[in-house]
């Protein structure tokens, strides 16, 4: 009996130790909503889909890396473009998850939608394991995106003033948003590779998401590893919205967007303004 007790005690003691030692292993997981990503599964997927560009060590020096411009991300520094966290902070799991699903428009990184959500979550866990920062640093709280202000003519005018004069966007992105400002040719990424400011007039899609909220996040947290700074301490939220409303007018599909918005508005008001019987007739 005594021997049994001793064995039981031994097991209990070691189990406690096991829980303590195993904790850091669990911290390598990723959490996206209810999904938990797992490093081991992520590694297998990484070796199948990502290793060619991002490399075995996750340092962005895979076999194909030299043929890819911009170069694949180096995961070892823990620096990522698309974040909801402040400049200099590590991204949230959901930020990495969204980037994998969205891809990075105008780069060699495609949207990985053929992979299941579980697989993408597993990849996030493995990508995080390349940088010790994810184990050392506490996650910072994400930027809050306040409600968008109306995209009025006044807001666009204020945004133009910020873009052209006050905040100096035009020095890199150009007066007309073509990415050809006077400082544009001097820009490099953090690895010293030449990098182009975004050309608002050519592309219809942005790197870190298409909604105004996504643009707000880029403007206020910056694109780490690139010359695009965080403007969170230079712009009030309403100014950031003004700037976004102006930037939208530089896009090639702006007028169609505007027309669509107007006709949608028109459709809504006509339906609402008409009496139920009239609306019925209208449907006929």
């Amino acid at each position: 009996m005594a021997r049994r007790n001793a064995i039981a005690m031994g097991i209990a003691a070691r189990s406690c130790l096991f829980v303590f030692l195993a904790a850091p292993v669990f911290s390598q997981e990723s959490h996206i909503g209810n999904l938990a990503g797992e490093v081991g599964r992520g590694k297998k997927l990484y070796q199948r889909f990502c290793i060619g560009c991002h490399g075995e060590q996750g340092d962005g020096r895979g076999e194909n890396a030299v043929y890819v411009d911009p170069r694949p991300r180096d995961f070892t520094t823990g620096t990522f473009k698309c974040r909801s966290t402040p400049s200099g902070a590590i991204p949230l799991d959901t930020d990495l998850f969204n980037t994998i699903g969205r891809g990075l428009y105008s780069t060699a990184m495609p949207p990985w939608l053929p992979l299941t959500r579980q697989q993408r979550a597993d990849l996030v866990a493995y990508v995080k394991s390349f940088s010790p920062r994810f184990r050392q640093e506490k996650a910072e709280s994400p930027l809050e995106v306040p409600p968008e202000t109306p995209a009025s003519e006044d807001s666009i005018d204020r945004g133009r003033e910020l873009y052209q004069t006050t905040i100096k966007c035009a020095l890199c992105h150009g007066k007309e948003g073509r990415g050809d400002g006077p400082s544009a040719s001097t820009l490099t990424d953090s690895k010293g590779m030449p990098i182009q400011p975004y050309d608002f007039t050519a592309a219809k899609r942005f790197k870190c998401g298409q909604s105004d909220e996504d643009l707000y996040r880029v403007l206020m947290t910056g694109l780490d590893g690139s010359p695009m700074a965080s403007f969170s301490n230079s712009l009030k939220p309403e100014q950031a919205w003004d700037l976004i409303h102006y930037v939208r007018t530089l896009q090639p599909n702006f007028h169609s967007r505007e027309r669509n918005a107007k006709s949608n508005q028109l459709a809504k008001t006509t339906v609402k303004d008409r009496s139920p019987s009239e609306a019925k007739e209208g449907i006929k």
Partner: protein
Amino acid sequence: MKTKYLHAFITATLFFSALRFVEHYSTAGASENLAAPKLAVSADTGNETRVIGKVTLSGPAPADPIINMATDPLCSKMHPKPAMTEDVVLGPENAVANVLVYVSEGLGNHTFDAPKQPAVLEQKGCQYHPHVIALMAGQKFVVQNNDPTTHNIHPLPLNNREWNQSQAQGVPPIEATFGREEIAIPVKCNIHPWMKGYIAVFKHPYFAVTGKDGAFVLKDLPPGNYTISAWHEKLGTLTQKVTVAANQVSETKFVFESHAAH
């Protein structure tokens, strides 16, 4: 019999989880040797020491090109006489300014507390003042914008975390710290590409940045043998061995060759 297997299984699991644990934290590298003795940095030990010297350049002075600030009239307006790049700044008798002089060897595992007062980097006339700033790991780093335009402060470290913050006119100072020693982190403003500076982060307090007289003083080093380095962004790094004795002044000179600048 069954319990024996259970024992073996638990022990094996433990062993592997311990391995992974060690693997985890051996890569972390952030924690310094915690058991290392702490040295008090003050003159009250009765062993007042001083390493003094001067940094000069031998040979012809490299040309200091003019900066063209035309892309932002708010910057160029502040310079009735055109601003010069600060790649190599010389004083009288070929003294070299903006040289970091610091103890690079000889302090062993001693650790030092960071000073309470912040190191302040000022943006004025669309240039960094000072051009080379030195501080300790963990010391508060403050960036002020005294210009009527917007800047972005973008340090490009290899051993610290990278960040990139804009600072419009009148925006309160930005505060940050650097966690690890790094000599030296380039800092730039992407909006105004001529704006370049360096941030040197030390884990000890024995460093100085030369002014236009090229002079430096390293105070209160514990008596012993040291290697002193002089780092310049364009001219390179020179080293000297120095012996520091109690209540003595040790003098040393650094002479950069000017062809190194081309």
